[in-house]
């Protein structure tokens, strides 16, 4: 009988333990952000999860979206400022730009013209991109800030709110 109780307890607590370690994948703050694997301009697949260890801003945008385009210069400034910064838990800062683009030349020209140096990916499926569904995107611009473990810290922050959220993770 005692063995049986112990076995049940082990099963229960063992199970609970594993759910705690495997972070729930979702879109709320505290959830693990879903993986994204999309091609870069060169065509090689870049995985979001490959950026593990870094503080990452996932920026969903499009060259056809006026407020997104406007925000790119601000992102360039943040990238320059925080890429070499020291964080408490993360080793550096990265931006993972997901373009909901329809045609490659529009995207490619914008990137080279504006000298965007952070990661850029797109499946060129515009609003039909499966990522728009996975991340339940209702409109652009939209972004998600994730920590080194891929856990969502904040969603859809812009301007000073975004910079504050990044700054919070800096080592003092």
């Amino acid at each position, binding site marked *: 009988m005692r063995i049986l109780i112990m076995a049940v307890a082990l099963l229960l607590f063992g199970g609970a333990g594993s759910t705690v370690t495997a972070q729930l994948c979702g879109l709320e703050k505290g959830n693990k952000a879903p993986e994204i694997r999309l091609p870069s301009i060169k065509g090689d697949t870049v995985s979001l999860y490959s950026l593990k260890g870094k503080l990452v801003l996932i920026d969903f945008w499009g060259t056809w*979206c*006026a407020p997104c385009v406007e925000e790119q210069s601000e992102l360039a400034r943040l990238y320059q400022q925080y890429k070499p910064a020291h964080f408490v838990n993360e080793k550096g800062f990265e931006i993972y730009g997901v373009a909901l*683009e*329809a045609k490659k030349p529009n995207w490619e020209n914008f990137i080279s013209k504006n000298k965007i140096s952070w990661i850029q990916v797109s499946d060129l499926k515009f609003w*039909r991109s499966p990522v728009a569904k996975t991340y339940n*995107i*209702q*409109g652009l611009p939209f972004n998600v800030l994730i920590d080194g473990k891929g856990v969502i810290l904040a969603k859809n922050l812009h301007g000073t709110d975004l910079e504050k959220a990044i700054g919070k993770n800096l080592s003092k």
Partner: protein
Amino acid sequence: MKTKILTFLLFAFTTSLLLTNPLYSQGQSDPWTQQQLLAPADLAKALNNPKSPQPIVFSIGMQAIIKGSVDIGPTLRPDNLNTLKQKLNKLPKNSQIVVYCGCCPFSRCPNIRPAMELLKSMQFTNYKLLNLPQNVKVDWIDKGYPMSE
């Protein structure tokens, strides 16, 4: 003094009425009427029933996502607007025409106004703007309406 206050109150009341009324807040200068907005559900119903009269649907935005729609490209660009004009020139003025973009909310979309203005200036009598107030994802794709291959 009393009349001044009364005039001010009347002014404030009318302004607030105008601002809160969706008919006005959508923009008085938009080149379409409420009657010219086509509900996505109605277009989906027509597309799903080949026996019903089929409108000619033009995609005037980034991508022809809707089933059977003709890809014109963003009519913000004069060359694309000209392509649309060429296509329209071949159609009778009473053709059932629907245009859509769906990139962004109506207030921010750069493509719908030039296209609707063109249709108006060419004196078409039966043209509509597909009512995608947020975007084509939320108001079409997410609803499971028919898409192109």
